[in-house]
């Protein structure tokens, strides 16, 4: 039987404001960051389509199709605006 993964999620900028928190520990059956983002977007009403989001896993940029593992720290990166 499939076990849920324990994930640590941090939120920044517009996603932080929508989620109403800077981080949380969750259990999720999502296989990839793309699936996880869609779940969280439904829960919190994120205004951004998954196609405009990048992801960091354990402090490195990764593909939205990367396999998630229990213990991962996942941070979704909305479109950046530095400089």
């Amino acid at each position, binding site marked *: 039987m499939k076990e849920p993964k324990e994930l640590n999620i*941090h939120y*920044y*900028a*517009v996603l*932080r404001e929508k989620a109403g928190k800077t981080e949380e520990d969750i259990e999720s059956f999502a296989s990839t960051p793309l699936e996880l983002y869609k779940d969280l977007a439904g829960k919190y009403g994120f*205004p*951004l*389509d998954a*196609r*405009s*989001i*990048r992801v*960091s896993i354990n*402090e*490195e*940029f990764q593909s939205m199709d990367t396999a998630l593992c229990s213990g991962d720290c996942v*941070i979704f*990166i*909305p*479109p*950046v*605006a*530095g*400089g």
Partner: protein
Amino acid sequence: MFRISDVPIDADLLSKELINSRAGAFVCFEGRVRNHNDGCEVVSLKYEVYEGLAVKEGGRIIEEAKEKYDVLEVVGVHRQGHLEIGDIAVWVGVIAEHRGSAFEACRFVIDEIKHRLPVWKKEHYMHKESKWVNCSENHGH
């Protein structure tokens, strides 16, 4: 070297990190907070930064610049927190033996910072609600 700063950027102090008797050229870029954007009057703004990844990615950008261009040293700093009009948001300094590679490397670093660093900007306006830049609905990356 790349870093994120919570306090105002001191350009004079940073330029002192770029002293080398082999250098015949010093080029720097200061990004400053301007008082308007997209036709709206901006009164101040806030930068939010995913600092751990931003420092790593900024360091990678500087290493790429050193490999790509004939330069002696590169320094980059980006602010986080609340900034007022005219404040320095980002500073890039490059020294090289000659001006050509110094200009090119400086341009490369600031362009890559703008595209790659996990930094977000919330602008506060005079006449409308504050907004995260580039984060409106259906914005393409």
